[in-house]
């Protein structure tokens, strides 16, 4: 993914936020970059068994808060049209590190970058339909 564009988006965002949050974002970004560098390819695909596991996790476990069809619950809706303005990197970061002050946990203890990239791909595709 084009990192430059993403950085610009982040800077624009940052302008609107207070200093504390910017600091937090910087720390988070650094952490994520540090974690990512451990992987040769951020967009490597999980194997098919893992894909099935992640698909079920997204639907059932993420669905506990975000809704089985990802139309929202305690957590926000995650339908493709709702997340379209957020870059892959921002979504990946959010899933890996969570959102402080909300029930959204950091999933990095359970999921790898590969896993989360795959989940973001599923979110973009709106893969959770009515199956």
């Amino acid at each position, binding site marked *: 993914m084009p990192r430059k564009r993403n950085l610009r988006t982040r800077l624009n965002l940052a302008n609107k936020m207070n200093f504390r949050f910017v600091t937090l974002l910087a720390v988070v970004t650094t952490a994520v970059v540090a974690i990512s560098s451990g992987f040769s390819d951020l967009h490597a695909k999980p194997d098919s068994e893992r894909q099935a596991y992640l698909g079920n996790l997204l639907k059932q*476990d993420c669905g506990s808060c975000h*809704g089985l069809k990802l139309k*929202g619950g305690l957590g926000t809706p995650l339908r493709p049209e709702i997340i379209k303005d957020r870059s892959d990197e921002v979504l990946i970061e959010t899933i890996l590190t969570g959102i402080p002050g909300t029930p959204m946990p950091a999933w990095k203890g359970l999921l790898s970058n590969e896993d989360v990239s795959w989940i973001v791909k599923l979110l973009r595709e709106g893969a959770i339909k009515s199956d």
Partner: protein
Amino acid sequence: MINKFKLMLGILMATLVFAANSHATELRGTGDLGLVIERADGSVLIVEHSTDTILGRVEGFGNLSHASVVFSRDERYGYVFGREGGLTKIDLLTHKVVNRIIQAGNSIGGAISQDGKLVAVSNYDPGGVKVFDAETLELVANLKTDSKTVGLVDAPDSKFVFSLYDTGEIWVADFSDPKNPAIRKYEDIGIQPYDALLTPGGRYYIAGLFGEDGMAMLDLWNLDAGVKRIMGGYGRGEEKLPVYKMPHLEGWASADDVLFVPAVGRHEVLVVDSKTWQEIDRIKVHGQPIFVMARPDGREVWVNFAIPDNSAVQVIDVLSRKVKATLKPGKAILHMEFTPRGEKVWLSVRDDDLLKVYDTRSLKELKQMPAKKPSGIFFTNRAHEIGL
């Protein structure tokens, strides 16, 4: 020959028709029935726990990612609260949907009033609590809030009590006059109450706080005393751990004058003295506890867990406060429901698409039945329990 054939065909058809309608024509009670949510397909199973069988499936409930059920006091009807705001009244005898309304965009749960005449639903979007006539599902009252509502329970003296997640409040709504409910609001009760429970008997309403340590307690026998903070040490404590699934507080155990409660995010069950509200023990368990439920006699407490430890169930001995057994019933144990007097427990094993029944004394599996991504299990005896 042809006549004989026709006769046999006739008998066969009559038998089939009778079989198809047998649940409607056969006299039976409902005290050993229940409903199981099948979250993937938006369907509900009607089950029976005397012989542990599935009697039927009712479909068309929409999104049941988070669903709960209350029962009419005659234990004939179940009210199913679905995530997408659906409120569905289902007849456990005929297996028919009697009535269904979509009353909000996004809901979390519901309660039935002390007299069984009102059904209340707790909504996220738009935030608030709506109260319906239990017979007709006509709207009786609409309590609007600026917040998601959680932890809705019925309480004695015609009350519904609930908490406001976003604004940190507890509201007590007195429905003595259903058209003109009297609402008492308690503000600043704590950050992000996420669920609540009523202690057995219905005296104390206790809300778990997600945004800070401790819990908020309201003594319903003494409303003027206001909300008190209890168990300052409860919660995630000094170390903030990721909480992969919100604990549910309905199932809090009360046994031997102590409450067994899930620690938020920690691999611990906390033991609280129900007289002093002090934490008196911490029991190390397999994962982050979700439901912590006492067997109906209070002798044991059963615990299930959040992902990634959700394939185990642990049994805690109440007297010694030690884990006495760890069971591995299958992948993703979402819920447990005891039979009314506790000799058996049903488990929903979501990712194996199974319901399993265990003997609570021998801890042996008695039976398994197929179900599609089962989650909540609700037996009709809940109809007569305050706060459920």
